[in-house]
C-alpha cells in the first residue's frame, strides 16, 4: 500500500467514528430527564402553556429526535456549536479560550514527563537488572496509583505552607504575562505529568533495552565510539519512536487527567467548563464540549498514526 492510499483509507475510517461520537454525545445529553426548556424555566410558574410551546418550537424540541440530531449535526458541520444556556455566549467562544488553557496544560505536562522519563528510563535500561530496576518499577507503579486530584490537593497544601509565593491560582493567559502564567501552570502540569512520566519511563526503558541489543550498536561500539555518544546518538534516537507513539496514544488519558486537574487548581480550561456546565445544567454546552474534545482526540490520534507511517514505512504494509 502506498503512502497516499494509506492516508486516504485512514482518513475515510475516521468518519464513521466521528459520526458515532456525535450520536453518543447527542444521545447521552438528550436522554437526561427534563428537556432544555424545563431546565431554563426551572420552578417558574408564570409561563403559559402557549409560551412553553413557543419555546419548545424555538429550541426544536417539538421535533422528532432524529430531526433534532440532524439540525445539530448540520450546525456543527458549519462550525456553529450553539449557545450556552446560562451565559448566552456562543459555545465556540467559550470553548476556544478553554481549549487554549487545556492545550497549554497538556503540552507542559508532556514536556515535564519527557524531562523526567527519558533520563530515568535510559539509566535503568543501561544499569538494568537488580535493585535499581525494582525500585524503578516500584516508583512508577506507585506514581500511577496516586489519584491525580489527591496529589494536586497535597501539592496545594504543601506549597501554601512552605512556598507561599507559588500559591497564587488566579489564572493569567500565557500571552498576557508568560512568567506569571508559567508560575501558575507549573503545579497543575507537574500533577498531570506524574502518571505520564511513569508510563513513559517504562516505555523508554523497554525500548532502550530493545535497541541496546541490536547489531548496529555493537558496530558503533566496535568502531570505538564513546559510550555516551553511542547512547545518545544511536540508541536513544532509535528508542524514541515507540516512546512518541505512546504519547500519542495517551492523549485521551491526558485530556481526561486535565479535566480533573483543572478542577483541583480552578484553571479555566475545558474540564472546568464541562463540570460547570453540568452543575448549571447547561446541556447544549456540555454536549458540544463532549463532542469537540472526543473529536480532537481522534484527530490527534490520526495525526500520530500518519506521522508514524511517514517515519516508519513498514507500518503501511501491515
Amino acid at each position, binding site marked *: 500500500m502506498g503512502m497516499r492510499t494509506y492516508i486516504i483509507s485512514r482518513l475515510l475510517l475516521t468518519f*464513521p*467514528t466521528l459520526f*458515532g*461520537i456525535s*450520536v*453518543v*454525545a447527542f444521545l*447521552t*445529553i438528550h*436522554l*437526561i430527564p427534563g428537556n432544555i426548556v424545563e431546565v431554563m424555566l426551572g420552578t417558574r410558574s408564570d409561563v403559559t402553556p402557549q409560551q412553553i410551546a413557543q419555546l419548545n418550537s424555538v429550541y426544536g424540541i417539538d421535533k422528532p429526535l432524529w430531526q433534532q440530531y440532524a439540525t445539530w449535526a448540520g450546525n456543527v458541520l458549519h462550525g456553529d456549536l450553539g449557545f450556552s444556556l446560562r451565559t448566552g455566549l456562543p459555545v465556540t467562544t467559550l470553548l476556544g479560550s478553554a481549549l487554549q488553557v487545556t492545550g497549554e496544560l497538556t503540552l507542559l505536562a508532556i514536556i515535564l514527563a519527557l524531562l523526567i522519563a527519558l533520563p530515568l528510563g535510559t539509566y535503568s535500561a543501561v544499569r*538494568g*537488572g537488580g535493585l535499581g*530496576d*525494582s525500585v524503578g*518499577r*516500584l516508583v512508577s*507503579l*506507585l506514581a*500511577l*496509583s*496516586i*489519584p*491525580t*486530584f*489527591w496529589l494536586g*490537593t*497535597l501539592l*496545594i*497544601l504543601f506549597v*501554601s*505552607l512552605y512556598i507561599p509565593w507559588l500559591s497564587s491560582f488566579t489564572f493569567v493567559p500565557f500571552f498576557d504575562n508568560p512568567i506569571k502564567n508559567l508560575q501558575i501552570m507549573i503545579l497543575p502540569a507537574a500533577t498531570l505529568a506524574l*502518571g*505520564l512520566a*511513569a*508510563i513513559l519511563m517504562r516505555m523508554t526503558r*523497554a525500548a532502550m*533495552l530493545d535497541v541496546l541489543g541490536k547489531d548496529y550498536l555493537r558496530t558503533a561500539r566496535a568502531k570505538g565510539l564513546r559510550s555516551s555518544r553511542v547512547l545518545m546518538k544511536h540508541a536513544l534516537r532509535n528508542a524514541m519512536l515507540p516512546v512518541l507513539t505512546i504519547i500519542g*496514544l*495517551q492523549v*485521551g*488519558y491526558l*485530556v*481526561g*487527567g486535565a*479535566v*480533573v486537574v483543572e*478542577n*483541583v487548581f480552578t484553571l479555566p480550561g475545558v474540564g472546568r467548563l*464541562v*463540570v460547570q456546565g*453540568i*452543575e448549571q445544567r447547561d446541556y447544549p454546552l*456540555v454536549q458540544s464540549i*463532549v463532542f469537540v*474534545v*472526543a473529536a480532537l*482526540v*481522534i484527530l490527534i490520534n490520526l495525526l500520530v498514526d500518519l506521522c508514524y507511517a511517514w517515519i516508519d514505512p513498514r507500518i503501511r504494509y501491515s
Partner: protein
Amino acid sequence: MRGLIQESVIPDEGLPLDGLAGRAHRGPRGALSWLRANLLTGFGGVLLLVFFGAGLLGPWLEAHQPDTLYPLSVLQAPGGDFPFGTDDLGRDLLSRILSGIRVSLSIGVGSIAVSLAAGAGLGALAGYFGGWLDALVMRVMDVIVAFPAILLAIALMTMLGGSLVNVALAIAIIYVPIFARIMRASVLSVRREQYVEAAESLGAGHARILIRHVIPNSASPILVQISLAISDAILIEAALSYLGLGVNPPTPSLGGLLIEGQGFMTTQPWMVIYPGLALTLGVFGFNLVGDSLRDLLDPRQRRR
C-alpha cells in the same frame, strides 16, 4: 486513566498464548518459588489482602458506625477513641474509611465483572463469527473507546444520576471495548487451532464450540488485565466523586471522603491524608499484582 492497560501492544492476530501455559505445569510449588522471586508482587498481594480484608471485615472492625454523629468530638485530631480523628460532623474517620473501602471495592470489582462478561462475550462473538457482526460490534467499540474515559464517564453519570449501581455501570461501559478488543484478538488465533477444527468435524454446534473450546482457551490475555482494570476503575470512581458525579452522599466512597475533607485540609489535614493513603495503597496493590500478571503473558514487557 487507561494508563496501564496497553491493549495497543497486543497484535491484532496471534497472541503469545504459551506464556501462561508454559508456567502452568509447574504446579503450586513452582508458583510459590516464583512468588518468592517476585518480592514486589508479594508486597502487592499483601496490600490487596489488607484492602480486601478491610473491605469485607469492615462491619466487624468498625468501632463506631460510619454515620453516627458525635457532636462533642467534632474535628478531633487522630488519637484516643478515634484513631484516625473525626470529621466536621463528628463522625469517626476510621469507620468511614473502612466503609469507603467497601464502596470503592464493590464499584471496582462490580464494574469490571460486568464489563468483563459483556466485553468478553461481544469480543468472542465478533472474533468467532467474523463478517458483518464483527464489523458492527467493533465499530461500536471504536466509538466508545474514542472518548477520553473520564469524559465519557462524566457524560454517562449526567445521564444516569449518581447511585452506586449507575457509577459501576458507567465505568463498566468504558471497559467493554477494551476487553472486547483483547478477547477478539485472542479468539481470532484460537479458532484456527486444530482442536476447534476437530470439534467442528465431530458436528459440535457453534454454541458448544464457543463455550467449551474457544472461550476457555482465549481467556488468559483478558484475565491478566483484570487487576489493572480494577485499579483503574477505582481511580475513575474516585475522580467522579471528586467532580461531584459519583455516589451520592451519605454513602462515602474513598473519593467522596477526600472531597468531604478538602475544605478542612489546611487545618485538619488528616481528613484528606488518611482516605487518600487508603485509596493509593489499595490501587497500588492492584497495580503491583496486575503488572506481574501482565508480564506473564507479554514477553515484550518482561523484565530481563
